[in-house]
């Protein structure tokens, strides 16, 4: 049956966002307030009784200050075909792997769209051929990943960045094929009894670059991203036992340096019907470990995350998530709060705040002591 292409369905959201910083940035080019608008429409069309479908999800943000944060991306542009025992995704898509909350070690297919949010949960679309088959003994996903996207970084006028800033025009690659290197990945996952288990392997261009100081064409000191070739094997496990979720993520990565291991292990415990109300309170604890210790590029190398998820279960879907990550060997700490609530029928209010304290001056991220912020977003869904 021939179906007109226009028979599909549009949905998505348009949002306005404001960010306020408590302190001046260390770089005078940085402002203390920042405004932006974004749009994330999605077009979906299916045919052959949904055995075939087409999804197109463009994204755009326009930012008042940061030209790097003003950006567009194709989050999804794919054809999906589903048969009885296998399915195929062809095009730009997004995939999530993992179980923990404080960081996502195992999740590696999509590049992080870091200008969107410091939490790293926003991702750029990734071109892929994805073949999946679901069997009694589990699900196998095979990925061919042509086309690499660089990580986005805030520009010189942006906040929540390193000092000096990362100049994304100066990126370089270990592999001579640079962005054209074809990566591959495979994953087996299975759910049985109380267990949800995934074992994955990725081979190709690492998503997180090594940042090194260099000089730009004007002679200013900037950080240049370098993308190495890596092999990463990952394991993610969740055991669900009544009100307990026990979680583990473990990776072993081999790149330019020595092979290293990193992991996140923890739990979420839910108190249902708190104090005879419909509210639920989830208590989270995760230990974050990186074998590289102080040399680890991120915030998390030997840290403890403690969090609370407060869900009101009301008609407005009100939720809060608060968490603190504490370094075990210093007093370095970051506190983060996220909250959301529906306003009216189809508008959502999101608030986010993050505070940093006692980051040692010797650290490459010492300037984050200045970066305490509150963000308010209002999104209209259609």
């Amino acid at each position, binding site marked *: 049956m021939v179906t007109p292409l226009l028979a599909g369905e549009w949905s998505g959201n348009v949002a306005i966002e404001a960010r306020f910083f408590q302190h001046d940035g260390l770089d005078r080019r940085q402002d203390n307030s920042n405004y932006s608008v974004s749009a994330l429409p999605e077009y979906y069309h299916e045919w052959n009784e949904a055995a075939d479908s087409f999804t197109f999800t463009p994204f755009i943000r326009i930012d008042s200050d940061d030209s790097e944060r003003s950006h567009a991306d194709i989050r999804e542009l794919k054809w999906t075909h589903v048969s009885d025992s296998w399915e195929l995704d062809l095009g730009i898509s997004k995939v999530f792997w993992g179980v923990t909350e404080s960081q996502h070690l195992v999740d590696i297919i999509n590049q992080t769209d870091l200008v969107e949010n410091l939490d790293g949960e926003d991702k750029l679309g990734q071109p892929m051929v994805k073949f999946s088959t679901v069997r009694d003994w589990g699900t196998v996903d095979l990925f061919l990943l042509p086309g690499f996207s660089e990580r986005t970084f805030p520009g010189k006028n942006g906040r929540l960045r390193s000092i000096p800033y990362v100049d994304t025009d100066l990126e370089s690659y270990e592999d001579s094929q640079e962005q054209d290197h074809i990566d591959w990945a495979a994953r087996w996952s299975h759910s049985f009894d109380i267990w949800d288990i995934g074992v994955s392997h990725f081979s190709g261009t690492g998503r997180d670059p090594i940042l090194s100081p260099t000089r730009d064409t004007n002679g200013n000191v900037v950080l240049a991203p370098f993308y190495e070739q890596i092999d990463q094997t990952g394991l993610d496990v969740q055991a*669900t036992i009544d009100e307990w*979720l026990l979680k583990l993520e473990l990776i072993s990565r081999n790149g330019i340096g020595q092979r290293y291991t990193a992991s996140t292990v923890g739990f979420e415990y839910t108190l249902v019907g708190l104090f005879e109300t419909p509210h639920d309170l989830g208590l989270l604890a995760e230990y974050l470990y990186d074998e590289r210790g102080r040399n680890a590029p991120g915030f998390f190398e030997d840290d403890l995350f403690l969090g609370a998820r407060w869900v009101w279960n009301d008609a407005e879907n009100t939720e809060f998530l608060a968490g603190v990550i504490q370094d075990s060997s210093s007093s370095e700490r970051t506190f983060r709060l996220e909250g959301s609530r529906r306003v009216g029928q189809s508008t959502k209010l999101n608030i986010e705040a993050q505070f940093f304290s006692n980051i040692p001056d010797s650290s490459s991220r010492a300037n984050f002591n200045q970066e305490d912020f509150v963000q308010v977003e209002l999104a209209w869904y259609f």
Partner: protein
Amino acid sequence: MRLNWILIAALLAPVLAIAETPEEKGLAIAVEADRRDTGWGDYTVNMTMTLFNKQGQSSERNMKSRSLEGKDDGDKTIIVFNKPRDVKGTALLTFTHKVGSDDQWLYLPALKRVKRIASRNKSGPFVGSEYAYEDLSSQEVEKYTYKYLKDDSCGEHAKGLSCFVNERDPVDEFSGYTVQHVWVDKEEYRPQKIDFYDRKGTLLKSLTFYDYKQYLDQYWRADRLMMINHQTGKKTELKWDGYNFRTGLKDSDFNKNSLKRAK
């Protein structure tokens, strides 16, 4: 011959009457209701929930649901949200088990993430409505113990029908209820009304079933249900429309992969 049968019946009748305790009769009613609702295979249906607060203000949720009847174990269900628009594409996969906790996975479309969630949450409200998760999950016989209470009329909304009133006690320690009283009509063994008693034993909610329709010449489904919370004054109307039975759904339509692309 005829005399013999009457004689046997006359001899047995009092024995049967004595043998059947209220617990046995209660269980027999539940088993019969389940037997009559066995064999439907699978179905898809649209759900519209309207939430009313105490002031009468309303908000609407719109979902699609698909279910596969379990043969040896409970049913499998996927519910996909369409409205409110901010949760569009969010989908919930449930494997009901006759014995033990159900398994549930939640798909969050913004992150493309499937999360296994604690089934302990069964007593919690479903999307802010007056329905708890456990009210919407498939009602397996094994999930309760039973006690027949009395015969009664089925109520104003089901005029002329007479009902068994059956008390059922949830087996699961995580249930939000001490007991439920179920009015089951004697004609077709359909639930007509359920009173829910909270953990303190006080009447919490009443669910009334309106406008039953029969599908495939056998299976009865109510088009409209009203859940009233007596303690908060809030209520939730649930409308089902577009039932489509035996659409050919299989086990492979109910896993984490199919959850991600459920529309």
